[in-house]
């Protein structure tokens, strides 16, 4: 006789999965990619009563265009996103961020929704999603909910996602014509590096060569992943000279320190962030000699 620690059920559709997650008296958990949950189960004896596997719900894998937005099913794995022409065309930095997650084996399993819902400090997709001002969509028994990703994720491993809610999609507005985006990562070993510092950035110049739009989002730098408005303000409306980009990078570092205070890691993170922001901006605005 086999002792079962929990039951395993497959969600057949999004509403079916939400119903399975919300049956009274049953402590249920979502199995999205499995990469994190399966490890948790090894460590903890009593994780839940029921595991709801959502990995085979077709709708959750869809990546589609809806008007001026791109909607990525929360169950899309990193490989599917990396290979999506739509994402590569509209959000190259997001495709790059997903490409930098783990190795093939992890990218085949890990999902964008799982990355957001678990909000690991090192989740590479988060800064890229915040950079595209992405919105997270969820379904609960009482209806649909949505939040900007930057609001949903409060700090590492903590989100506003209510118990019983299923993250269904992440969406972003397609950036304006002529926008560029970049994702940079500083990690110990490329393939499996649990990243320590990342920068996602997006920028667009107007016809006069001035900065019409810029977004700077460092990852693993602050507890809540967010845009750095002070650094962005340095650039907006200006001609992006190398000197100005350097100034913006310095302001970004000051902004990080303002939020986190000085830490044991500051000595490493401050110069690293400064050079990464500079490099990201140089790539966005074609500045010579910066990287």
């Amino acid at each position, binding site marked *: 006789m*086999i*002792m*079962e*620690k*929990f*039951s*395993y059920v*497959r969600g057949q559709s999004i509403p079916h999965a939400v119903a399975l997650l919300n049956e009274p008296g049953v402590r249920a958990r979502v*199995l999205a990619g*499995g*990469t994190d*949950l*399966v*490890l948790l*189960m*090894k460590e903890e004896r009593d994780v839940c009563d029921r*595991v709801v*596997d959502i*990995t085979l719900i077709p709708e959750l894998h869809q990546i589609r265009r809806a008007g001026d937005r791109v909607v990525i099913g929360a169950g899309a794995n990193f*490989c599917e996103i990396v290979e999506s022409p739509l994402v590569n065309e509209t959000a190259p930095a997001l495709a790059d961020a997903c490409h930098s997650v*783990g*190795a*093939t*084996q*992890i990218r*085949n*399993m890990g999902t964008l929704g799982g990355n957001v819902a678990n909000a690991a400090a090192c989740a590479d997709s988060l800064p890229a999603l915040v950079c595209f001002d992405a919105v997270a969509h969820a379904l609960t028994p009482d209806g649909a909910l949505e939040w900007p990703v930057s609001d949903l994720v409060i700090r590492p491993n903590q989100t506003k996602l209510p118990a019983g809610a299923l993250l269904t999609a992440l969406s972003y507005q397609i950036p304006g014509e002529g926008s560029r985006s970049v994702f940079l990562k500083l990690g110990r070993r*490329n*393939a*499996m590096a649990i990243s320590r510092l990342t920068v996602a950035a997006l920028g667009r110049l107007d016809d006069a060569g001035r900065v019409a739009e810029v977004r700077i989002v460092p990852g693993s730098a602050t507890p809540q992943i967010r845009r750095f408005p002070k650094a962005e303000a340095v650039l907006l409306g200006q001609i992006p000279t190398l000197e100005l980009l350097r100034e913006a990078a310095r302001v970004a570092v000051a902004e990080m320190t303002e939020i986190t205070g000085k830490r044991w890691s500051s000595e490493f993170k401050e110069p690293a962030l400064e050079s990464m922001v500079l490099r990201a901006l140089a790539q966005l605005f074609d500045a010579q000699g910066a990287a």
Partner: protein
Amino acid sequence: MKIEFTLNGEPCSVEAPAHINLLHLLRDYVGLTGTKEGCGVGECGACSVLLDGKLVNSCLVLAPQAGGRDVVTIEGVRGADGGPNDLQKNFIDHGAVQCGYCIPGMVLAGEALLAKKLNPSRADIREAIAGNLCRCTGYQQIVDAIEATAAARRDTRQPQSIEDAKVHEEVL
């Protein structure tokens, strides 16, 4: 619970608890020990298998997730005569096997790459095996073996025997 799936082209039905991982299911419940456990936490790739044709770490797959799906382990990769296939022969010929512990995972990572791309650069090959750690060979010989196999398969345009039908189709 009963877990039924296709294993190396054959139907497989096994009674096992829901909380174990696919690696444990394969080794201890089905008795196929070609799939190795290195780290057990998704970092070394020794436990790599193909799930519906995709390379995954079986230590991170919950056993019941395999239900109704197609799993290929190293036992399912072989030549028409039952011996090593072309990729496995190239591993041997290029000295890519020392202690051998990483090799089942390496071979499956190689097959997963070659199913998608018969013209990989060395950088493509290195990326394809980036999730597979080898503590013996220094990787060069492994990259050489995969590269040589790609070249030979390009020349013959013949799929090599691998039990997984999906991989077959993609190679064709």
